[in-house]
């Protein structure tokens, strides 16, 4: 029996909505192709972790997602806008709804922490100084950095720098939040606190979060789904449990941190050394 139209509407509204849609994305550095037709959809309110070994293309994929590189092929839609067709001003407007926390924080060293957090407000809003101060203080409280607004970035530890970067990334209450290697270089306790912060942001602020990481423990703790990249191609997209059960040896190698056998051809190695290849 065919479902009624009311049932169809209800089912459609309950279906998860993709807020990031990557289709057949290709990326090149000169003649070298780094991404080979990557397709990925991230649903509203989920935490998608992108994992992969070194050189798998995960950082390149992130740079495309946050608009630092334009794809050489395929399409990329953020919040229903095809970014490959957006002009400069339209892209700037879209960026108000995106926040990015970079691997090293990327705080501006000449500004205090509070000034760093206020910069997006200053750029995109027309708020008075007092309101911006209040918002910056609130965001610093969210990331447990209350009272550190007057510090300079050089005076903060690695974990505090990353949390300050998160405060700057969420100051405009973005719908999409991107993290580049949030756990890199942190001790386990600080890393776990940052994982909790990511979960808190998703739950409390209903953000859709994309995390690029190679920290397996962190990925399995925070991810709703994990996309595994391998040599510029998506190897699998699944829940953490689904990946654990996967019979794919490459996935198991990555998850179990087993080194892959790399066969070296002595002749081609010598040619490379001599600069002939």
């Amino acid at each position, binding site marked *: 029996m065919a479902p009624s139209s009311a049932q169809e509407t209800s089912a459609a509204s309950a279906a998860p909505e993709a807020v990031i849609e990557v289709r057949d994305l290709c990326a090149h550095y000169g003649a070298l192709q780094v991404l080979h037709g990557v397709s990925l959809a991230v649903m509203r309110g989920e935490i998608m972790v992108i994992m992969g070994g070194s050189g798998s293309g995960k950082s390149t994929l992130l740079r495309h997602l946050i*608009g*630092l590189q334009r794809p050489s092929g395929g399409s990329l839609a953020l919040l229903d806008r095809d970014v490959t067709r957006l002009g400069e001003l339209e892209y700037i407007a879209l960026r108000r709804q995106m926040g990015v926390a970079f691997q090293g924080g990327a705080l*501006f060293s000449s500004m205090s922490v509070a000034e760093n957090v206020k910069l997006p407000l200053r750029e995109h809003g027309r708020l008075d100084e007092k309101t911006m101060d209040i918002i910056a203080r609130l965001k610093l409280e969210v990331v447990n950095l209350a009272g550190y607004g007057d510090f300079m970035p050089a005076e903060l530890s690695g974990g505090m720098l990353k949390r300050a970067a998160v405060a700057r990334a969420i100051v405009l209450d973005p719908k999409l939040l991107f993290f580049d290697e949030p756990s890199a270089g942190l001790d386990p306790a600080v890393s776990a606190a940052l994982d909790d912060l990511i979960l808190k942001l998703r739950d409390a602020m209903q953000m859709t979060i994309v995390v690029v990481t190679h920290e397996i423990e962190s990925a399995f703790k925070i991810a709703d789904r994990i996309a595994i990249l391998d040599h510029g191609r998506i190897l699998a997209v699944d829940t953490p449990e689904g990946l654990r059960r996967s019979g794919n040896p490459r996935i198991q190698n990555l998850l179990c941190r087993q080194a892959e056998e790399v066969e070296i051809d002595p002749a081609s190695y010598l040619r490379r050394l001599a600069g002939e290849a």
Partner: protein
Amino acid sequence: MISSVESLGRRAVRGLDEVGFAGVLFGESLFWTALGARWGRPVHLPAVVFQMMEMGIRALPIATLLSATVGLMLAIQSLYSLGLFGAESFAHVGIALSVIREFSPLIIGILVAGRSGSALAARLATMSINQEIDALRVIGINPVRHLVAPALLAMLVVLPALTMWANLVALGAAGLYVSAALDISLAAYASGTVEVLSPGDLWHGLGKSLLFAVLIVLVAVVNGARVSGGAEGVGRVTTTSVVQAISAIVVTDMVFAFVVTQ
């Protein structure tokens, strides 16, 4: 043979690429300065003032010292060379024209290229390595409007101003030496100097300093933006920036003097 030709070709292409990039940066800076406010994205005045303080006010002591030294050196050499013909009384002519038209813009240009051009290249290179430039872009801030345009505007004000100051200091120092050596009053020396100079001489020097300002900023930004590697890369682009800026200043100075005096 082929590899050296190939290397030469690659360098030429890279050079052209950098010149093109500098042209785009210059055009974009002018665009944001002229039209940024209309789009609600102005070049921020505090950033320009900050750069002016860094490039101008903080350079005043060393600019004063160098200008005074150049003025004294010119006075000593002029009196010696003109003394060979018994023409010491004409020393003020050579000193005034060479200070205003040549030495002040050149010395200040080289000083600022070494001091502020290197600082700008190092700052941009460090920001690039620390992903601060990427952070600006994802926040939606155009890096040219935020970083390049304020530096360019500040330099266009500061370099001519420092050149004017250097004119005064160098002529003053030369005047003190010449008046003491020839036993004439400083007022008489100053009067003779003013008589010799025309507004065209002043504009000749200031025109050069405006060109040098553009060169110093663009060379610094092009090098800073193309950094690769870590601290070593920052050091390399900083050195390259200073060498290229000083070379560009000296060559431009010669071309400008040749074109204007024809």
